[in-house]
């Protein structure tokens, strides 16, 4: 299994990044920090999906006349493109809410907010 993991080092790195992000989301109290963590989680999943589509010595899937394979798989890349858009949309909405919460309560620490509620 260790050998397997070494060959799949990209996947393992994604899991590590995902875990760091999840830790930040759960453990940190600051709402902006939580959202940085969520962004790390999202990018970790993107890295995972891109790694799925990668092939040994792969080239970009662009079929100009003289391009020779092997080509990286185009489908995961389109998925991640969509995913990036989703991530920035979520972030924009979350940060707007954070700004409004700060305006109303004067803090963005989750524990202080819980007390005020």
């Amino acid at each position, binding site marked *: *299994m260790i050998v*397997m*993991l070494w*060959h*799949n*080092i*990209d*996947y*393992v790195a*994604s*899991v*590590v990044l*995902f*875990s760091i992000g*999840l*830790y930040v989301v*759960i*453990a940190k*109290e600051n709402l902006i920090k939580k959202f940085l963590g969520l962004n790390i989680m999202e990018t970790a999943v993107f890295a*995972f999906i891109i*790694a*799925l*589509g*990668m*092939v*040994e010595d*792969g080239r*970009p*899937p*662009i*079929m*100009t006349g003289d391009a020779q*394979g*092997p*080509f990286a*798989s*185009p*489908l*995961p*890349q*389109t998925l991640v*493109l*969509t995913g990036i*858009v*989703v991530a*920035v*949309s*979520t972030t*924009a*909405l979350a*940060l*707007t*809410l954070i*700004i*409004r919460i700060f*305006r109303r309560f004067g803090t963005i620490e989750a524990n202080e907010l819980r007390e005020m509620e």
Partner: protein
Amino acid sequence: MRRPIAIALVLLSAIPLVVAVAGLPAHGDPSAPVHTHVSAHYIERGAEEAGATNLVTGVLLNYRGLDAAGEVTVIFTALIAVLAILLGTGTTPESTASSRGASDRRGADRESTVAPVSPIVSFVVRLLAPFIALYAAYVILHGHVTPGGGFQGGAILAGLFIALAMVLGTRAMQPVARTALAPWLQGAAVLSFVVVGTVGAFLTGFFLGFPAEPPLHLVRELLIIALEVGIAIGGAAVLATIFLHMEAS
């Protein structure tokens, strides 16, 4: 208190994930299902079937056009959401521009946004602006041939807009954001999918279909470029508007 629970939860999720990734087909293995099933078809036939040398664009706009339509709807949703939350709270760009200095806690430094802008930065941004715009146009219009595409170009345009807004002050940007054209621009991406999709339905009998017969290849290319331009305009307008409204709040 919170930390041990968090660490326990993270480990609880990380261990199965590591086991799972170890069970996946080896990284970069050309015989993995990812490379032999759907993607193999795209790589073999995609350029000719979908009409885009850049297969990523071809897959995104043609094969999986509904995903792309959903994608632009997501970012449009983000804009609508941000506006719905910020409007009416007295913190819109319009109202702050008109009631500046009244009871505003940091009314004085409205002009500089995130940090004071040095003259060098200001000069460089203004100098580079036309070139960035040109590059964005290339990325958008050439996205079906080379890396890039509507969304990447749109994001570059939005970045340019934001950089200019920081250098020139957001107030200089208000006339752009306040025109009657603004809702059209913000909805451009979604609407271009509706229009191109309907045109495709008339041409091919399928919503979001692109004609594949050789005589209509030019039409197909035009439709793809129309979508790219629509996505770029919509994406840029949405991102820039979100920035302006968050900035003014």
